[in-house]
């Protein structure tokens, strides 16, 4: 039974890191994989608003909070940890993980690490790939094109993108499709997980009265996202050993 850590981040803000993290938590819940999540938007906590039962708010720049996460990987009952890294802190977090020897432990196969790098539309995202890839040699590295907030990736030259993509061994591309804007807004207002919204439930699991159409959009969108996670073999390749118990 090997603990697994998934880091979701980007150095740019507004690319939908928390949205992707929320889909991951929904996906694992749908597969009955117990997960603990860490929200690094201290002290506010965006992720915790949608997944309050599984999420703790931490400050990734504080050593005490780094210890809360990493030092408990082996002892915690829940073997899969998902960390939603605040904008601009992805590189910093990876540096910290390297410096504390966590990346070496991953290399020695004591832990499994997956990095979900959420890409933005600008060319600076491609520079981030080059920067981040230096840390993820022994991790599963996922490059996520997130279209939820209608990112069109318009200023990417496909040839340049391919050139960057090729540099990273075993990088896997993941696409999160666009969700209907009104549906997205309603979920924000409701403050529930995507799955709960689709199932017409409130945060406390009581029946809700969300629009049937918007729920339909969410259900359909979520099924596409889940299909993408199935395609990359998220359960088998990344967290399989964490849940093998």
């Amino acid at each position: 039974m090997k603990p697994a850590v998934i880091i979701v981040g980007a150095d740019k803000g507004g690319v939908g890191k928390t949205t992707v993290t929320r889909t991951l938590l929904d996906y694992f819940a749908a597969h009955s994989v117990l997960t603990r999540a860490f929200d690094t938007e201290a002290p506010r906590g965006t992720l915790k608003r949608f997944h309050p039962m599984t999420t703790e708010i931490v400050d990734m720049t504080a050593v005490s909070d780094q210890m809360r996460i990493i030092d408990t990987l082996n002892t915690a009952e829940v073997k899969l940890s998902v960390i939603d890294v605040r904008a601009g802190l992805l590189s910093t977090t990876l540096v910290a993980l390297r410096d504390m020897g966590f990346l070496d432990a991953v290399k020695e196969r004591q832990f499994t690490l997956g990095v979900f790098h959420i890409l933005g539309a600008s060319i600076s995202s491609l520079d981030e790939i080059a920067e981040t890839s230096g840390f993820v040699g022994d991790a599963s590295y996922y490059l996520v094109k997130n279209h939820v907030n209608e990112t069109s990736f318009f200023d990417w030259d496909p040839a340049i993108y391919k050139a960057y993509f090729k540099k990273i061994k075993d990088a896997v591309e993941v696409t999160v499709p666009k969700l209907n804007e009104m549906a997205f807004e309603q979920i924000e207002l409701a403050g529930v997980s995507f799955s709960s919204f689709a199932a017409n439930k409130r945060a406390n699991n009581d029946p809700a009265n969300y629009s049937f159409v918007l729920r339909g959009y969410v259900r359909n969108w979520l099924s596409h996202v889940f299909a993408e996670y199935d395609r990359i073999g998220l359960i088998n390749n990344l967290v399989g050993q964490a849940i093998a118990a």
Partner: protein
Amino acid sequence: MKQRTFVYVACSSRRRAGTTLLARLLFDFLSIDDPTLTAFDTNVYEPTLSERLGGAAVGVDLATTIGQVTLFDRLILADQAPKVVDLWQRHFALFFSLIHEIGFVEELRRQAVELIILFLADADLASFEAIRNLRNGFPALTFVPVINEATARTAAVAGDARERLLAQFRYNIRIPALDPVLSLLIDGPGFSFSQFMRDYPGERSLSGQTTLYAWIRGIFNQFRDLHLRMTLHDLGRTLKKRPTGRAR
């Protein structure tokens, strides 16, 4: 047995096939027995149904999420109040794409709501092919071809071919051609089919009134027959599902 809610969608894949006329006829027919019914006009640029019904129809733009919510959130309600949708030809494909995407048909099954697609078909092969493809894509829905004999395209097609194609469907409706003068009358402002039936005989020429009365009555009888046959079919299915033997 829980009483079902009937939702009728008047539609066609072709322009000027007579969907608004069909929707008006249905609305007036249903309003005789049930004043709680609602009509939806999906043509926001030329809301003829709303105009004909004196604003009684709810206008919805299916190209917007607000419009989709306004329509489908109402259609899915199992409130036993019938609904009539006049589907704009330009949103014909969008409508079916949406009901697939949002899982509308699956939800219909859970609710006691019956969606009846009244498809104005020309009697040519292409038109019937379209409705057959739709039926294959949505086997849980009830498809009713409607032949509007007022359209020139329909009248020109050989009757035998049409009958063979119609025989492939459990139900069908025919709207006979109407004298052009009477067509002008029913398209006049404020004309109501149900009101005309209630007021008959009125002050207009007896011959014209009699013809129109017979025309409306013929169509209303088909609606009544359709409703009755669907109810009986549903009852038959329910009885088949029930266990027959007594528990010992």
